């Protein structure tokens, strides 16, 4: 019963958040700030992780191809598909759930316990929409770019480290990249990314916005935000895969 109550409360929160901003100029200013804070600031960690996961994927795939009947260009193909289908949209979103989710929940939680959200409400500001909507719209906008960059860096990392390790040649790897490519995979990855961006920002905002108490509770709401965002990303990953690829 409590689960349904929480879900209902979450959907009511989202309903309030998606109200028309009271001041568009202020909204865009905040949106720009969030694009930088949630997106651009996440680029270094995404680049590092993508580069090394791409490298590891290539080397592991190459070492696991024992059969002489499987051509070596399959390494490039497998790396490409693994990165586009699963690593960049899903694993990067899980990493963002940790980095961005905890940051959103602790920021809003601190604002709640220091009465800054109450101050906004008393001034007549729709605090949910004012604080949360720019974060959600910013993530919906910037996350697809982050994922595309992650795909590019992951595949490049796979190619460079694969060649350096001597497990595949550039010709074979690039041939594999070009083989049996399905453009819909990119669409599928971007659909997942947008859904995950919404889940991460809205769930984290929900836990931060309704934090109560002091520093301990803010910490706890931040942990819950990461845990629930990650679980919902994984569940929706399965459902979207079932719906879009089967």
């Amino acid at each position: 019963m409590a689960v349904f109550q929480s879900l209902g409360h979450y959907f009511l929160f989202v309903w309030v958040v998606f109200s028309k901003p009271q001041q568009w100029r202020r909204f865009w200013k905040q949106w720009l700030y969030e694009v930088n804070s949630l997106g651009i600031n996440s680029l270094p960690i995404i680049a590092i992780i993508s580069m090394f996961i791409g490298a590891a994927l290539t080397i592991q795939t190459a070492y696991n191809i024992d059969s002489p009947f499987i051509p070596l260009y399959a390494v490039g193909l497998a790396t490409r598909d693994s990165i586009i289908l699963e690593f960049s949209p899903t694993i990067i979103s899980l990493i963002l759930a940790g980095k961005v989710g905890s940051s959103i929940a602790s920021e809003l939680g601190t604002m709640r316990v220091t009465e800054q959200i109450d101050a906004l409400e008393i001034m007549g500001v729709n605090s949910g929409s004012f604080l949360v909507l720019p974060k959600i719209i910013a993530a919906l906008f910037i996350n697809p770019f982050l994922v595309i960059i992650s795909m590019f860096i992951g595949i490049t990392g796979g190619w460079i480290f694969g060649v350096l390790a001597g497990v595949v040649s550039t010709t074979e790897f690039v041939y594999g990249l070009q083989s049996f490519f399905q453009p819909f995979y990119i669409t599928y990855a971007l659909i997942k990314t947008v859904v995950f961006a919404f889940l991460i920002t809205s769930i984290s905002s929900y836990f931060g916005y309704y934090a109560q108490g002091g520093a301990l509770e803010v910490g706890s709401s931040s942990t819950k935000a990461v845990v629930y965002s990650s679980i919902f990303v994984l569940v929706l990953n399965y459902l979207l895969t079932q719906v879009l690829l089967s």
Partner: protein
Amino acid sequence: MIDIQHISKSFDGRVILDDISLVFEEGKTNLVIGSSGSGKTVLMKCLVSLYQVDQGQILYDGRDFTESSEEEKREIRKDFGMVFQGGALFDSQTVAENVAFPLEMFSVMQPAEMRDRVDFCLNRVNLSSAHDLYPSQISGGMKKRVAIARAIALNPKYLFCDEPNSGLDPKTSIVIDNLIQEITEEFNITTVINTHDMNSVLEIGQKIIYLNKGKKWWEGDKNSILETDNAEVNDFVYASELFKRIRRASHS
């Protein structure tokens, strides 16, 4: 004027406010006093609709706040100014940006007018040199003064102050108290102050309401509170050694 009629509020069956009726007068500092747990904070949160009352009415110059929709409440709230216990300043904004915030949100002022208004409000609270400082860079007393400047930026009709001098030294407390009283009279605001500081009570208590166990127990002003024969009020007023000595001195 704020007219409260028979309001009650409970949490999980525990009665916090029990059938309270009172009037907060315009142009006066209306103090709500009482010991911790007496219901002062809940009353203030009901007044600004951070909590919904279980029954009763709150009328702002005749406008029924309790029956209003969320949209109507937001409109009425634009006439509110509030000074929170901790200041509740926005950490990511400078002092000047904090004061300008309500103007940016709700006024149609041009940037130059807005700057003038921010300057006026900060001058009014003697903080003209703190424009570009962040809340983390100023003292507790300065934070309270910035909160007052932000609260008066939009010329509010109603000013709410929740323990405005908690955590401040006695001298700074008096500065804050006097500032609130001056602003109240100057702009003819209905000011409601929650406090349990007897110094404030005697300094600015133009109207005083004593809450006890969620009920209105006593009503008067700063002169009558020292003379009352109400036992609970006397317990509260003369709790400190300082006031006991004053009483002994006045009786001898």
